[in-house]
């Protein structure tokens, strides 16, 4: 066992990469749930994003176009959820589970000819001077743009929810859709837009796995990150910065336990492998012991009866 093989700088740099898919999916779902909709189809939208992003990047050679296609793919799949829950007023839990199963199956079909293909590299930031700095350079200035976009998105969602009228209306719809309707707000329209935003974010998160983190295509490669994202939103008490914290914690322990495995620590691999899930949830459960609670209309079907 040789713990000195673990390089803390590389560890931090790679935990940011490991956390980004989770972060993107969770911030999208946070917006959806703030609008009062529970979409359990995050896993399905992520894997569709993963294959759309992968296939388009391979075909066009441009990761930018690939990520765009991933966001589009996730949003299009979320429209199926919209159709079921906002138009046909179906149960959100069942519709979300169906969406995940459908996404997993459809992605396997779409990805058949891409197994074993290697995608083009995603360009990374390289600012002469800054990126070459010791410690700070690899951690802050040498990642791909999507990673920075994810952090910016957390800040943007936080600011929009807290300071803008759009954010206030979104929270109002999630809190009491009947009252929002009585005041003349378009509950369904706002929810549809929120769901599509959530779909696009999940798609981006999925593509980040298949294009940056792994990077290759295998069936079911999201491996439960969508479910972790759902849990993360709840345990983060629907607060954007706690989503960031939780995602980095999860990413950090994932990377650390891989490093520990490589260093040959005398803990059974199974315990190490389960540690990210357990520790993340434990920490967030402790954090979520404050007053904040779920949006009051979460998961309830809205029907303008009069």
């Amino acid at each position, binding site marked *: 066992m040789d713990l000195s093989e673990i390089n803390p700088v590389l560890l931090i740099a790679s935990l940011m990469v490991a956390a980004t898919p989770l972060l993107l999916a969770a911030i999208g779902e946070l917006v959806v749930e703030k609008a009062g909709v529970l979409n359990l189809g995050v896993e399905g939208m992520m894997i569709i994003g993963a294959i759309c992003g992968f296939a388009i990047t391979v075909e066009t050679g441009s990761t930018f176009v690939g990520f765009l296609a991933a966001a589009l793919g996730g949003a299009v799949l979320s429209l199926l959820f919209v159709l079921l829950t906002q138009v046909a007023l179906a149960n959100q839990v069942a519709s979300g589970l169906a969406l995940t199963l459908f996404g997993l199956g459809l992605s396997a079909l779409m990805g058949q000819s891409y197994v074993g293909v290697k995608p083009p590299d995603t360009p990374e930031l390289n600012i002469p001077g800054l990126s070459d700095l010791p410690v700070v350079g690899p951690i802050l200035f040498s990642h791909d743009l999507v990673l920075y976009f994810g952090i910016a998105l957390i800040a943007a969602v936080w600011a929009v929810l807290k300071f803008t009228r759009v954010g206030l209306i979104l*929270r109002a719809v999630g*809190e*009491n859709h009947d009252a929002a309707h*009585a005041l*003349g707000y378009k509950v369904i329209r706002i929810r549809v837009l929120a769901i599509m935003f959530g779909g696009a974010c999940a798609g981006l998160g999925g593509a980040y796995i298949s294009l940056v983190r792994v990077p290759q295509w295998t069936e079911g490669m999201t491996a439960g990150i969508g479910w972790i994202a759902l849990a993360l939103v709840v345990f983060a008490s629907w607060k954007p910065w706690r989503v960031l914290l939780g995602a980095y914690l999860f990413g950090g322990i994932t990377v650390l336990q891989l490093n520990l495995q490589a260093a040959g620590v005398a803990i059974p691999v199974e315990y190490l492998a389960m540690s990210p899930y357990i520790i993340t949830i434990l920490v967030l459960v402790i954090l979520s012991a404050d007053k904040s609670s779920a949006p009051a209309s979460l998961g309830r079907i809205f029907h303008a009866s009069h």
Partner: protein
Amino acid sequence: MTTPLLSLQGLTKAYPGVVANDTVSFDIGAGEVHALLGENGAGKSTLVKMIYGLVKPDSGTMLLRGQPYAPPEPRAARADGIAMVFQHFSLFDALDVAENVALGMENPPAMGDLASRIRDVSETYGLPLDPYRRVGDLSAGERQRVEIIRCLLQDPKLLIMDEPTSVLTPQEVDILFQTLQKLSSEGTSILYISHKLEEIRTLCDHATILRLGKNVGECIPAETSAREMAELMVGETLQTPERAGRDFGAVALDISGLSVPSPSEFGTALKNLHLTVRKGEVLGIGGVAGNGQDELLGVLSGEISTDAEAVKLAGEPIGREGPTARRRMGLLTAPEERLGHAAAPDMSLTENALLTGSVREKLEKRGFLKWAETQGFAEKIIKAFDVRTPGPDNAARSLSGGNLQKFVIGREVLQNPDVLVVNQPTWGVDAAAAAAIRQAILDLAAGGAAVVCISQDLDELMEISDSFAALNEGRLSAPRPTTELSVDEIGLMMGGAHGIEVAHV
């Protein structure tokens, strides 16, 4: 005559199976306080929803200051100076006061400015409010202030108020009326919806009465007696419940030194509560909603368990018994919330009859249900209490509020309870049905049962109860004989005006 502010001409709106409004016409003048009277289901709500742009009329026109007016949505109505205070508050519990106000405005100023404007307006009209408090933590009276201030900030020309006083103490009602009179003297018209006739007589200049969607008459409330207006509303002569003089028997229900925390986040804990009810006595418990009524009902029904000795039924400690055990011992309860608490909305009346009646009416045997007897029991309730429904197979949800309430109360009354506890027995029920329910409660007491009636309708409590106590912030005042009490004393027992002061501009 000058042009009225708002003129309704032949408004008609039909829903499948029911005409909610049938060629309704009337005018509201500038600065006038106009009452809209009618029973539940008379079409008052539909009518104001058309004025506020939530519902489109099938035919008929509206003129605002002589110009055609057809708001496609509420924001258009608000832009034309029409504001509405809703019957069921349209507030968001998790948001603060300023955010709630901003949501009801077209072009809200920045949050900081809005907060200072809320403070200004609330002081001008004597309705103090802290803009940064969370609405979920406010009392019902304070929540209504949020709604009113939200409307006032938009400088409305017409303010629609849908049953605004049902949640207020008498002192709070006085202050609300002073605010409304001040508004009307400043030229704001008010459309005031209520079925409390005395209020309308003190406040309103003019009244329009709706029955079954039709305008059946207009009157000057100050010159018309409450009874005449009530009979116009109902379309028949009203029966006043009769109470025979009776002697009280032994103590049937006894609560002593009871303190319990509330099970819900925004609830009120009960603090050191004492009460006794004798056989044949009706104890009325008044108080503004949210002062511990739901918790008291929970303690009596067995949904909240307490120290065994804290609650005694005929001397037996029952604090730890659940609802079924209490039913077997003769303590029955009918909670306030009809859909979801007193009745399961999507189950049939027969199934709902079984849910509380199975123990005392012996509707099950070794775990198997006796459907024929249950249906018979449901039919008995429907017949005895004149519940208007095609039959016991209909879902509870399909009944109107008043009919379902008659069913829910009748279900308990017909099980011959020793002690009956009811919460808001006539909430949202029309006058005729309310009279029938009150009569049933009085008859039950005359037969020797003890009754606890929790209600916010003071007229009702004065009418049926022998003694009166008030709940205020989880504390119960000492019960006093009803005949000795004046309205002012009752108001003080209910906790006065909760910090409101009179408008001072």
